[in-house]
């Protein structure tokens, strides 16, 4: 039963969806503050390479090393996001161009590749990697075994993060202020909220999440380092944020939906059905476009749409 197509696809959907989930959660936080960061791919790659570097160079028990690696990956992502934040918040640069520049700077042909080569990381298997947490007897339970109990600590941690971010956004004063900053920075400013500080903080935290998402690749999915390891996952995460209407809980569903579509063609091949994987993989993108068109009407946009001030610099004197 656990080898049936649905279970296999769902279980690997969770695996492949986890980096997307982390990155998308981070992007939700940044975009909710009004900062569009198209540099997710670059930040993920930096997280992936620095996390892998930590695992290679640090001595100690596996859990400690992995925890440190996640910390370093988060820091690397946050440092990258800080460049973007400085450019778009303090220097009021165009957010789209700055985000793309970040991806070029840090991406597959940029700093992450430079560091990967200079630190001599390429082509080695990871010394430590995330393993399934629960005993095999649990993993053999029908259906929920592989899907729920067959996962690594990164997956369970991501669920906690989803809950925390969701509660933060809708149930705390800080989250309310954050949403105000993203919807109407002028109103938030008048209310006494420091717009720049909120935007900086959430862009940086968003970068940290993206870094962790990248480390999920180099420490869990394909535990090694190669240039461009994430293969465009950062862009998918950006799509996912829109697909999830900027809501963390929907990010969870969306990430596993996107992940399952990555896994489906391979699982089908295992069952003797050959399909062109490429055509399957276009579906999430097409679905995102359709979802976006559906929420484009004025009424729907107010309810589900992007934060109203997304992409716009805030300058107090210029309204």
């Amino acid at each position, binding site marked *: 039963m656990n080898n049936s197509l649905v279970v296999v696809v769902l279980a690997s959907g969770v695996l492949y969806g986890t980096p997307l989930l982390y990155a998308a959660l981070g992007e939700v936080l940044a975009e909710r503050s009004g900062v569009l960061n198209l540099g997710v791919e670059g930040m993920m790659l930096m997280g992936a390479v620095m996390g892998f570097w930590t695992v290679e160079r640090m001595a100690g028990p596996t859990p400690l090393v992995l925890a440190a690696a996640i910390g370093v990956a988060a820091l690397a992502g946050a440092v990258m996001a800080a460049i973007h934040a400085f450019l778009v918040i303090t*220097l009021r640069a165009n957010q789209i161009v700055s985000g793309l520049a970040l991806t070029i700077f840090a991406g597959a042909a940029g700093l992450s590749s430079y560091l990967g080569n200079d630190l001599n990381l390429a082509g080695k298997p990871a010394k430590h990697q995330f393993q399934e947490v629960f005993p095999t007897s649990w993993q053999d339970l029908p259906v929920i075994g592989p899907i729920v109990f067959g996962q690594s600590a990164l997956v369970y941690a991501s669920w906690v993060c989803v809950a925390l971010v969701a509660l933060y956004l809708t149930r705390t004063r800080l989250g309310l202020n954050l949403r105000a900053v993203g919807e109407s920075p002028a109103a938030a400013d008048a209310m006494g909220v420091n717009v720049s500080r909120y935007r900086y903080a959430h862009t940086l935290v968003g970068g940290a999440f993206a870094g962790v998402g990248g480390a999920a690749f180099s420490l869990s999915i394909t535990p090694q380092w190669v240039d461009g390891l994430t293969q465009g996952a950062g862009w998918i995460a950006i*799509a996912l944020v829109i697909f999830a209407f900027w809501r963390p809980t929907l990010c969870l569903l969306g990430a596993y939906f996107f992940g399952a579509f990555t896994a489906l063609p391979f699982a089908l091949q295992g069952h003797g059905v050959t399909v062109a994987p490429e055509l399957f993989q276009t579906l999430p993108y097409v679905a995102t476009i359709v979802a976006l068109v559906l929420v484009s009407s004025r009424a729907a946009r107010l309810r589900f749409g992007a934060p109203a001030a997304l992409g716009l610099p805030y300058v107090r004197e210029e309204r």
Partner: protein
Amino acid sequence: MRIERRLRQPWWLTVVVPVVSIAVALVLSGVVLFLTGHPPLKSFRRIIDAAFIANGALTETIISATPLIFTGLAAAVAFRMNLFNIGGEGQLYSGAITGAAVGLLMAGSPSPLIFVGMIVAGAAGGALLASIPALLRAFFSTNEIITSLMLNYVVALVLEYLIFDSHSYLRDTSGFEANVFPQGKTLPDEATWSSWTIHGLVLPLGFLVALAVAVFVWVLYSRTRFGFEVQVIGDSTRAGRYAGMRTRRKIVAVMCLSGAIAGIGGASQMGDFRHQLDPRGLRDASYGYTGIVVAALARYNPFAVVLVALLIGGLTNAGFTLQGADFPAGLVGVMQGLILFCALGGELFVRYRVRFAW
């Protein structure tokens, strides 16, 4: 410290700021090199040599720059109107597909006819793809950033499907090797675009077409009513509409023009340089995304796009030439990114005055 908006932008700032930005970026790249134990000056000298000075380097740089001129112009055309078409990547693929298909179909026809056919087909392919986000934006006000970005992936996957996973017309199915290592059909010789050699410098047809497109864009945007309306709508859509301008039509027209330019870039890849559809090669080159960077650095001025594309193309070319054990891979991306960061930061000084008052 106070930052105030400039009422008038002095013209010399638009020249000085980019130059200073690039200088600062070079210094920062030097710091990166120094920190990782590479001698900065020697590395720079090798880059400049490999990009512009060495025998045949300039020819190679033009090859790297040509697609960037197309995608840079494509981005500049749309961004001028605040239409953020970041689908140049996909539109280039799309133009490559249609361009290659026409090149193969017209085998046996006279060469000039094939060239024209491929250029028209490439433009049509790019424009067709761009029309999707354009129409969605014009009639449903769907955000074109995301839709055009998503289509990049869709087309990239379709391209892979055509070459790797189907028996399409574009795939080479002759012979044993072609079946094991899938690749695109090679275009016939008569579909290879001409090139001219001047003092050892090879000018491919695509490069000349790119220059012609740059002139066309400049004339269109600074000498015609169409261009004037585009800029008004770009500055304020409402003002444009009140003045009786057809904003929806303009959105579709500009977006399709942008896609068409990127599409010709794709056709030029087929006719000038690659001669067969190569999904991985096109994707790794990521001309579309780099084109946006080129356009931004050039401040959306078509002639500056050509210059910046030559600069960035030179860097890319140097990266290819120097790739090896003693030359850090990824340095080129780092430098391109730093140049962009500095240029973006420098933009502040063009638009604003920074006063130090205590």
